[in-house]
């Protein structure tokens, strides 16, 4: 079975598709077959970008009128499968809405899905890679049932590159009634302000964990991030504890980062966390426990108290500026 037809779910934002969407589109091109995008909102305004990254057609589910995308977009994709036939694969970004779409589509089509995927190849059929146990092992998996193969891919698994293609042809998705399942509506949107570069894009990420001891100490992390023109991140433990917003979380459930340098402060290195930052070019760790797992992957480690090392680091960096 050759992989000749791939659909990619492209998540729209005001400034274009999400980076993960473009990464998937770029990778879908490498199979050499037909690549189509699936989006919602206002497809026409994104047709140029979809084409630039390799989609010849952009299927548009249209205005969702405030509904959460999961149910209506899955219903529209299922309707397209019914009318146009199933593609070999449907690639979906690992994101809040992406996981909703994937889960609903899987149940609608009665097809399994593969999640947390970081690699996709054609090895006598689709073969996917999944990091497990904090990324120490890679599981390779295949679909054993008929397609489409629904694949949910983690951010930064591939590098987004323009193909220089012409704008995609926009095609309205068949209307599909998602009934009661589509009745969850967004009534207000709140944006949490943050300064400096975005966590996923920063060349320097400084993250804090439980070792900071208290919420107030996170200020040290923010200050070092600012001095290094980087972004401040966090482990799940302190996000769960309510010290910092979820949007700062790095790890399995949070963001995947691959900065030039990742500075882990008071983070022990739970598998949850490691899978989100293990791809960093350099890793610096500061932890008072010499046996903390984070030291096993750190390029440079300081066994010490973050409450002493971080204030000193702030002074040293200020002296340099």
């Amino acid at each position, binding site marked *: 079975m050759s992989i000749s037809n791939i659909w990619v779910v492209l998540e729209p934002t005001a400034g274009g598709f999400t980076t993960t969407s473009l990464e998937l589109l770029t990778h879908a091109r490498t199979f050499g077959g037909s690549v189509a995008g699936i989006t919602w909102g206002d497809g026409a305004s994104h047709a140029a970008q979809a084409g630039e990254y390799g989609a010849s057609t952009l299927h548009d589910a249209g205005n969702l009128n405030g509904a*959460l995308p999961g*149910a209506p977009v*899955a219903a529209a994709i299922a309707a397209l499968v019914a009318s146009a036939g199933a593609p070999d694969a449907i690639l979906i970004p690992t994101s*809040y809405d992406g*996981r*909703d779409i994937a*889960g*609903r589509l*899987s*149940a609608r089509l*009665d*097809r*399994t*899905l593969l*999640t*947390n995927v970081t690699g996709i190849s054609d090895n006598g059929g689709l073969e996917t890679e999944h*990091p497990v146990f904090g*990324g*120490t*092992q*890679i*599981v*390779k998996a*295949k*679909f*054993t049932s008929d397609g489409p193969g629904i694949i949910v891919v983690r951010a930064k698994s591939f590098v987004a590159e323009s193909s220089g293609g012409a704008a995609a042809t926009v095609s309205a998705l068949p209307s599909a009634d998602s009934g*009661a*399942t589509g009745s*969850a509506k*967004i009534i*207000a*949107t*709140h944006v*949490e302000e943050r300064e400096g570069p975005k966590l996923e894009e920063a*060349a320097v990420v400084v993250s804090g964990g439980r070792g900071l001891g208290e919420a107030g100490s996170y200020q040290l992390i923010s200050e070092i991030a600012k001095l*290094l023109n980087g972004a401040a991140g966090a482990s*799940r433990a302190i*996000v*769960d504890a309510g010290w910092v917003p*979820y949007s700062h979380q790095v790890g399995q459930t949070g963001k995947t980062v691959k900065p030039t*340098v990742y*500075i882990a402060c008071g983070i022990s290195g739970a598998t949850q966390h490691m899978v989100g930052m293990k791809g960093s070019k350099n890793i*610096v760790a*500061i932890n008072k426990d*010499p046996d903390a797992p984070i030291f096993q*992957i*750190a*390029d*440079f*480690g*300081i*066994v*010490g*108290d973050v409450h*002493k*090392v971080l204030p000193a*680091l702030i*002074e*040293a960096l200020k002296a*340099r500026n």
Partner: protein
Amino acid sequence: MNIVVCVKQIPDPAAPQSLESSTHNLNRSGKLILDEADTYGVEMALQLVDKAGTGEVTVVSMGSSSDLAGVRNALAMGAAKAIIVSDDSLRGSDALSTAKVLAAAIRRVNPDLVLAATESSDGYTGTTPVQIAELLGLPSITFAKSVNVDGSLVTVNRQTEAGYDEVTSPLPALVTVTAGVVEPRYASFKGIMAAKSKPVEILTVADLGLDGQVGASGAGQSIVAVEAAEARESGEVVVDDGDGADKIVAFLDSIKVL
């Protein structure tokens, strides 16, 4: 207000984990505990039922019935009863099979609200709750930072990339909660004693009418290989003697970040 909370008993994440060599299933031979991620849903459900002044919390789980300490923990926290679907044929189930089983079990309770964690801490597929919602024909709101029920409407602050959205849905509905949505209570001694006599219904696949549709035989995927990832070499680790900060600056210099 009747609420079902989907829970999972998992191998203790603090203990070393492995895959079984022949089946590639997660090795579950050790002691199982209630997934900490599920304790938030149990607590949320107990608070919502308390606030409504009527109804009860039912926990629903799929897995072994020989070690139910984790489920008993949810009952000790205050859930009224448990339904466990346990069947050897369910080993190696994929997320969709699991969702079919849990959906069929939930249907017997006919709840106003279904709560689940955003993902389990062992398999972290993260799609089972939404698959359940689709199978039950329910709306769903995932990644809840807060949950409020007012009459027949649930309102959720839902995590987004940039902050959060306020989302509403009519009941019945399914909501997945993030860790930290509430502070889970510890089971009291009284609760632990009471849990011993709370009803735990154990069902098989046949009881649910799902023979031949679920389990490893119904899984549309298989693991073809497990390989060691490229190891990351650990570098220099030094004990801070008051010069730790300077050494970090020197390292940042060496990689040209400064």
